Structures are given as C-alpha cells and as structure tokens.
C-alpha cells in the first residue's frame, strides 16, 4: 500500500474534521473497549495468563530458528509446500507464481494483515487476476478502494449510511429499491455475492494467527467463517504469514488463544478457530489439493537483537488501538501505513524506516493504556520512547525543537538550577497574568493558546507547594 506516514500531521488534521469518521469512532468506548472489560471480568486468571503468554512468546523468540525449522519439517511431511520470503517483493512474487502455476483467474482472500503489508492485491491484480476480499469488513474497504483502518475491524471508520451507499453503487444488478438500512440486510447481500466467489475461486489466500511447530499446522481465527470457505473450496490454499507467528505446541497455542479473542473483541472465544495441516488427504472428500505457506521476514529478524524484539510478541488483537486516545481521535488511516495505533507507532518505523514514520512514535501522550491492556505485555510507550531517543541521536528534527530538548535536558539533570529556573518562570508568568488570570496568547505556547486560554500560575511551583505541604504549612 502507499505509505503516507510522513504526512501524519496533515492526515490528523483531515481526520479531526471528518465528521463521518468521528461518528464511526465514537462507538469504540462502548463497543470493543467495554466488551474486553466484560470478558476480562469473567476470567479471574486473565492477568496471570498475560504473564504466561509473554513468557511463551519470549521463549519462542529466543529459539525462533529452531521452532521455524521444526514447524517446516512437520508441515512438509504433511504435504505442505513452505516458501521463505526475505522481503515483501519476494512474498508477492511467490504468491503470484503459485497463482500462475494453478492457471488461476479468481482469488478469494480471508483477512490477512501480512498480505496488506506486502501489498498483495495490487500485485495480483496487475497480473490480471480478480482478487476478492471475503471478510465483510475487508470487502467493504475493498469496494471503496481503501485500506483497513484497524487490524481486526477493517471498516470501523465507516458508518452504516456510508456502507449502504457503497452497496447501492457497487451492486447495480440488484433492485434499486431494495431495503438496506439494517445491518442484517447488508450482511445478507454480501453473503449472496461472496458465496458465488467462494465457489468459483481457483486460489484461496488466508493469513495465519499462529503456526504450531509440534504439528506443522497453521491457525486462523474468524467469526464469519469466510476463512474456512476460502481455504476449503478453492483448489489451492495459500497461507501468507510471518516468522513471528510460530509457537512450539498446542498447549502454547491454547494459552494464546485464551488471550486473543478476549483482548480483541471481548468474546470468550472466536466462533471459528481452524487448524490446517497440509492439503486434503487421499481419502478426503473435500479441501484444497495444494497447501502453500509463505513465511515473510521483511525486517522482523533484524529486530531480534534490539530493544524492539519485544514487539515480535504481538498477536495482533488490536486492544492497544482500541484503548488509545490518539487512535480514538484520528482513526487508523492517519497513521499512513498498515499497522495503526500504538503497535503501528512501534512496528512501522522498524518495517518502513524511522525517516518515513518518525511522527508515529511522537504521537503519544504516554498515558500507558496500551501497555496495560496488551495481552503480551509489550512495553509500547517505552519502545516509542526508544524511537524518539534514536531519532534525536540521529540528528533528525528541527533546529528549534532540538535546541529546546537540549536545554530541557541540561536543566532536568541539574536540580538546583531547575528549581531556580521554574521558580523564576512561574513567578514571572504569575505577575504577568495576574489581571486576567489567564493568557490569550504566549510566545512558544501557540499550539495551546490558539485553541484555548492558558491559565496563569498562582505564584509558586509544585515543588514548593509539596515542600510546604510536608512541613504542614497551611495554604
């Protein structure tokens, strides 16, 4: 997909003024956030399971080459064809090659963020293939020529009215006066249209939530059942996934699955969790004749000996973005690349470069909600801070910003000087603002005062008040 992460600031301005987007995003707190809270409350072991989940992934990452090889051996023994892809371009070409060999014309797809990462649809379409997304949210996004704005709810930025209008525009062979104002009518229409695609498809592409070394399986988790129809009805099933998805055993998968659905949608368990191992067996009555797994690196392995290794624990539940005040205000497209929200702010600079994505780790209040809900306990604010540190160390940023940071760092490391400077500053502002009690404008604070007044300080610093409080001086 096109990268617009460098334009984050103008993306944000547009998003804040987009009333349809703001209406669509307003449902987050009572939707996914509240549902997760309720699901967590029903499972007393939830917090303890987060520790176990983190440990499983840490162990796996420390032995990643070995578990990938073990998985490959079992998968191959079951008849899978395993393809390794160092880069996105490799992965795209491998999938295109499989489609060519199958003489494919129609490709159906289940939801896969890795396929978004490698911009697979555009590549296959350029080769003359028809590519149809079958997850309803992905289909809604595809017919608008957009990209997903959320990793598990791709069309979360759309209102029902927009979706109805899109369906009327897209499905012109259906009666114009058909009722489409209820979600159930939209879903039924999509079901009929996509059913035909499932049946006619030559190749079905899915992602994988996990790979299991013990059995050589890939796992997909869905609620719609579209992934299962995608992978069962086509002659060829292609799994597009990445090196960080492997876990050692079924027991490890069980623990991570307990965390995944609850963190993502607040369900106790997703409706369909499917383990696929190899193509159809000689005695089988259905299922694909070929089963390919494309395993992408695309910069992940380079994180293994850096502080960003922890981000490879991510199981793509989306909880961090659901709980993020920045994501909640601007939605996913503003982030300008595949992964939005706090996980994107940490992962995107690693995958597309800090130059391109430097705004993203800076777009955080460090409120810490993302880390507190992350089922894999990824220290997202700390890793964003690490990107900021690296950005500063590389000499990036404006001269004014860098000087201000340098001055701040000089002061912050000299407590006496810091106290003196803040006392003087506060006293000055207090004297200047005494008449009105607030400032309408102030040099260097334009970002604040353009939108609201800045209250004038009362004369003493917090440190002074605190010291007096401890000595029992009445205020």
């Amino acid at each position, binding site marked *: 997909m096109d990268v617009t992460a460098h334009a984050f600031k103008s993306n944000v301005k547009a998003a804040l003024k987009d009333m349809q987007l703001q209406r669509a995003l307003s449902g987050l707190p009572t939707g996914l956030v509240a549902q997760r809270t309720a699901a967590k409350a029903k499972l007393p072991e939830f917090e303890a399971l987060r520790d176990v989940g983190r440990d499983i992934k840490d162990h796996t990452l*420390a*032995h990643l080459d070995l578990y990938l090889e073990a998985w490959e051996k079992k998968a191959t023994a079951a008849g899978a064809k395993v393809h*390794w892809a160092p880069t996105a371009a490799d992965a795209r070409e491998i999938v295109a090659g499989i489609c060519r060999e199958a003489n494919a014309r129609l490709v159906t797809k289940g939801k896969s963020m890795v396929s978004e990462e490698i911009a697979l649809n555009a590549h296959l379409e350029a080769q003359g293939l028809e590519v149809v997304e079958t997850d309803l949210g992905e289909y809604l996004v595809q017919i608008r020529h957009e990209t997903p704005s959320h990793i598990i709810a791709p069309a979360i930025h759309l209102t029902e009215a927009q979706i109805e209008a899109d369906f009327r525009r897209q499905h012109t062979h259906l009666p114009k006066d058909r009722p489409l104002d209820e979600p159930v009518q939209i879903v039924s229409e999509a079901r009929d249209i996509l059913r035909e695609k499932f049946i006619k498809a030559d190749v079905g592409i899915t992602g994988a939530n996990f790979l299991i070394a013990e059995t050589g399986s890939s796992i997909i988790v869905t609620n719609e059942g579209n992934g299962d129809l995608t992978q069962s009805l086509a002659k060829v099933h292609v799994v597009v996934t990445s090196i960080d998805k492997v876990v050692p055993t079924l027991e490890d998968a069980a623990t991570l699955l307990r965390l995944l659905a609850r963190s993502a949608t607040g369900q106790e368990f997703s409706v369909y969790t499917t383990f696929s191992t190899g193509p159809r067996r000689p005695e089988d009555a259905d299922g694909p004749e070929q089963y390919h797994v494309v395993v992408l690196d695309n910069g992940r392995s380079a994180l293994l000996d850096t502080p960003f290794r922890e981000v490879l624990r991510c199981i793509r539940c989306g909880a961090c973005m659901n709980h993020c005040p920045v994501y909640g205000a601007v939605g996913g497209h503003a982030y300008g690349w595949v992964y939005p929200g706090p996980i994107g702010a940490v992962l995107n600079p690693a995958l597309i470069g800090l130059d391109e994505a430097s705004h993203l780790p800076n777009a955080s209040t460090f409120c810490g909600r993302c880390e507190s809900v992350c089922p894999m306990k990824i220290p997202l604010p700390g890793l964003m801070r690490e990107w900021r540190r690296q950005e500063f160390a590389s000499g990036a940023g404006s001269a004014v910003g860098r000087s201000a940071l340098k001055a701040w760092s000089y002061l912050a490391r000299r407590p006496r000087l810091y106290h003196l400077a803040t006392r003087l500053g506060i006293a000055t502002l207090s004297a200047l603002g005494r008449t009105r009690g607030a400032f309408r404008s102030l040099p260097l604070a334009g970002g604040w005062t353009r939108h609201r007044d800045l209250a004038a300080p009362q004369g003493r610093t917090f440190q002074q008040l605190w010291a007096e409080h401890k000595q029992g001086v009445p205020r």
Partner: protein
Amino acid sequence: MSDSAAALRRDKVLGAIRSRLGQSDGRSRTAASRIAGQAPHLVPERSRRDAAGLKELFATQLRAGNATVVAVASEADLPAAVAAYLRGQNLPLAMRAGNDTWLRAIDWSREPALSIAEGPAVPDDEVGLTHAVAAVAETGTLVLASGPANPVTVTFLPETSIIVVRAADLVGPYEAAFDLIRQRYGRGTMPRTLNLVSGPSRTADVGGRLVTGAHGPRRLCVMVVG
C-alpha cells in the same frame, strides 16, 4: 522460480535469525524437549468440574454465543430430536452428512421423513449434520476433525449446521481436547483441518452491530447425546 533461488531465500531468512540470536549450547535440546512434551500452562479453574457441571457449562456458553443446545438421552432418540428441531425451524428434513461410522449406526428410519445425502456439501444443501470428536466446556466449543466421515464443507456451507457430540467426549479445557486428538491421530499429527466451532457464524463489521449468519451457518444446533 527455481529451487535454488528458494533454497537461497530459506538460508537468508533462517540465517538472519540465527546470526541475531547467537548459537548458545543447549538451545536445540530445549526446543526439542518442549515440542516433545509441553505440560499445560495455567488452565482456568472454571472447567474443573464433574461431568454434570461440564455439561451445564458447555450449554450455557454455547447459548451465550447464540447456538441452540438440545440434550438427547441416547442415540436412539437422536432422529426424533433432529426432526423436531428442523420442523420447529420450518426447515426441510433433508440433510447432508459424511460417512461417519457412529452417525451411520443410528437407525434414522425411525423418522421416515428424514433423509441424509452422503458426501461433501454442495451449495444447495440447506442442513449439514456432523459428529464432533470432542467438545470443550470452557467456552462451549465443538471440535471437528475433517475427513470422509465429516467433510469440512458440511460444517460450513449449509445455512443450518447440526453438530452432534457424545456427552462422553465432553472435556473441560482445550488442552484435554488436544490430548484426545493426540490419542486418535498420534502426537504431532493432525487431520487436514481441525475446526473449533463456538456458535453460528457472525459479524460486527457493519457499524459495530452484531449480526449472526455471515458466511458460515446462520443457525447452529448442538445435540449432546447421553
């Protein structure tokens, strides 16, 4: 693309990982022994119950996911229960099923109006009948193994899915169901697909509102026998 190019790409990915991780002693042994026998991690207390408790938890969880749950006393009562459910839903009494030995051993002629077509599902099939190898009470989840006995299309294509499970195959947590699969197929071996099903198909992609019947079955009826 040639095989040698593929081999190069494999070396590149695995080589990059190895060089970043370093190769300390004992890593291979650690990984191999974990794969050979990982004990369950923390298993939620909620599924530590007797048989009756498991049955109750299983049904409660499935109903919360919008499935219908019917308790059937014995195999002999299954045809009548299936026919009653289909009549109650105004559905045809024609079903699709695989060649599952246990399902075939049931005397379906007790309900002469019922018919079962054998084989994988076709798009026109309205009702699919499958036999789950196990069921997990923890979250009300059925475990289906694909094969000629229960083709995967029978579970996903028809609008109505009837899944039958024996009460004896009901377990508490997922880990216990995986052990049953290992007993049946051997450790490290799986059927082509193992499907964990916890309700009828659903979506919330339109305005965040929940709708059942997305691409898979609109209705799920689970019959617990015994």
